[in-house]
C-alpha cells in the first residue's frame, strides 16, 4: 500500500447526520442568541416567529442521529459513537503538552474530539429536555421552568463555545474537514495521527483480501 492512498473515514450516513445536525445546531445558536441577548432581541424583534423556528428546530435536532442509529445503515456510525466512549492511554495523552506526550498510536478520534462529542451529545439532550419544559410545561411547573431556564441559558454559552472550538479546529485541519465532506482521508494522515485506527483498517484490509483469495 502506498502512503498516499485514501482511506474511508466517514460513510454517507455519518456525513448526512453530521451536516444536517450542524445546520440545525447553527440555526439554534443564531435564533437562541436573538431570543436571549437583549441587544439582538430588540434589534431583530419578531419574537413569535424566531421562537417557533427555535422550538421546531430544537425538537428536530436529534432526528438525524436517531435515524442514523436505528436503520440497517447504522453499522459504521454506531462503531464510531462507541469510540467516543472508550478511552485508552493515547486519548488521555492528547491533553498533555506535546513535549510530554508518549506518542502512543491513536484511535480514529483523539481525546479532544472524543470529549467534545460526548459533551455535545449530552448537551443536546439536556437542551432538549429543558427547552421542552420552558415551552410546554403546565403553569404549575413554574419553579421547574425557572430551573430549566437557568440550565438552558448556561447550555447556550457552553454549546456555543464547543461549536466555535469545533469549527476553528476544523478550519485549521483542512484534511479532516474535507474528510467530513467526501468521506476520505489519506493513509499518511492516519499514520501520523491515528495509528491505532490505521492498524485496525489494515487488519480488515487483510481480511478482505483473504476473502478475495479464497
Amino acid at each position, binding site marked *: 500500500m502506498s502512503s498516499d492512498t485514501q482511506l474511508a473515514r466517514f460513510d454517507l450516513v455519518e456525513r448526512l447526520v453530521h451536516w444536517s445536525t450542524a445546520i440545525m445546531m447553527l440555526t439554534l445558536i443564531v435564533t437562541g442568541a436573538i431570543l436571549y441577548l437583549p441587544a439582538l432581541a430588540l434589534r431583530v424583534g419578531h419574537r413569535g416567529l424566531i421562537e417557533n423556528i427555535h422550538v421546531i428546530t430544537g425538537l428536530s435536532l436529534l432526528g438525524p442521529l436517531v435515524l442514523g442509529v436505528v436503520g440497517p445503515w447504522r453499522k459504521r456510525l454506531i462503531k464510531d459513537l462507541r469510540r467516543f466512549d472508550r478511552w485508552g492511554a493515547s486519548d488521555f495523552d492528547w491533553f498533555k503538552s506535546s513535549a510530554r506526550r508518549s506518542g502512543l498510536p491513536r484511535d480514529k478520534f483523539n481525546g479532544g474530539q472524543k470529549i467534545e462529542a460526548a459533551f455535545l451529545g449530552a448537551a443536546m*439532550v439536556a437542551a432538549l429536555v429543558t427547552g421542552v419544559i420552558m415551552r410546554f410545561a403546565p403553569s404549575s411547573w413554574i419553579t421547574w421552568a*425557572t430551573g430549566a431556564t437557568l440550565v438552558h441559558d448556561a447550555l447556550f454559552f457552553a454549546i456555543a463555545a464547543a461549536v466555535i472550538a469545533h469549527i476553528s479546529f476544523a478550519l485549521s485541519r483542512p484534511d479532516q474537514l474535507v474528510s467530513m465532506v467526501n468521506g476520505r482521508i489519506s493513509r499518511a494522515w492516519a499514520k501520523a495521527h491515528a495509528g491505532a485506527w490505521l492498524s*485496525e483498517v489494515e487488519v480488515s484490509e487483510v481480511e478482505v483480501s483473504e476473502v478475495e483469495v479464497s
Partner: protein
Amino acid sequence: MAEQPEQQSSGGPVPGTKPVHVGRRTVLGILGLAAVGIAVGAKVDNALGGVSSAVSNAIGVPLPGDADFRYYTITGSYPVIPAATYELTVEGMVREPLRLSLADLRSMKRTALVHQFQCVTGWVVPDVHWEGVLLSDLLERAGTAPEATALRFFSADGAYTESLTLSQAHRPDILVADKMLGTNVTADHGGPVRLYVAPMYGYKSIKWLNRIEVTNVVVPGYWEDNGYPVNAWIGGSAPVSVVP
C-alpha cells in the same frame, strides 16, 4: 496480527489496554448536572441573582440566573412614543369613552406596588417597583355597561393584543403603569404606558398599551394564539391579591 484483541474491531483505544468509559461518564455527568439545575435552579436564582446581575450589567451580556429583564418584541421594530403625544383610549361597552393623555392619566389616583415580573418560560425579576393607575379605577371612570364581561388590550406596535375578564380586571393588583423600576417606563419596556398584571405571567402585561376595549367576549391575545394559556395565573391558579 492474528492476536489482535476483539475490541479493536469494535472501535476503541489501542489494543492490549482496557478501555475506560469516559464518554459514558461525561454524558451521565452532564445530564445529572442538568437534572440538579432543573430541580434547584429557582433557589440558585434567588441566592445568586444579585451577583449574577451585577456581572451581567458590567459585561453587557445576560448571565444564567441573573435577575434582569429580557426584552421581547413581536414586530420587527418597537414603537418609541413621545410622552407629549401619547394617548390612551378606553372604549367599547362604556358609559363614557375616554381619551387620556399621559398628563390626564397621571392626574388620576396613583397606586404603587412592589412585585416580581415572572415570565412563563421561567425567568423572573424579583421585587420590581411599579406605579400607575389601577385598571379598576380607570374602568370605574369610564363606567362599564352591565352586559360587559371582558377587556381587549391593544398595543401601539399594531400586533400585540391581550385579554382579561372584567372580574379579573377588578383585582387590586393590576396596573396601567407609567413607571417601573423607579423611573418612567422606557420604550424597550413598553413605555410610555404598559399594563402590569401582577398575578399572571409576563405576557399578559402588554407593552405599548394604547387602547382598551370593553366587550362581552374574551378574545385570546397574541401569545394565547401561540399556545399559551388565556388565564395565565402564575402557578396555575388565581392567588389572593398579591399586594398586602
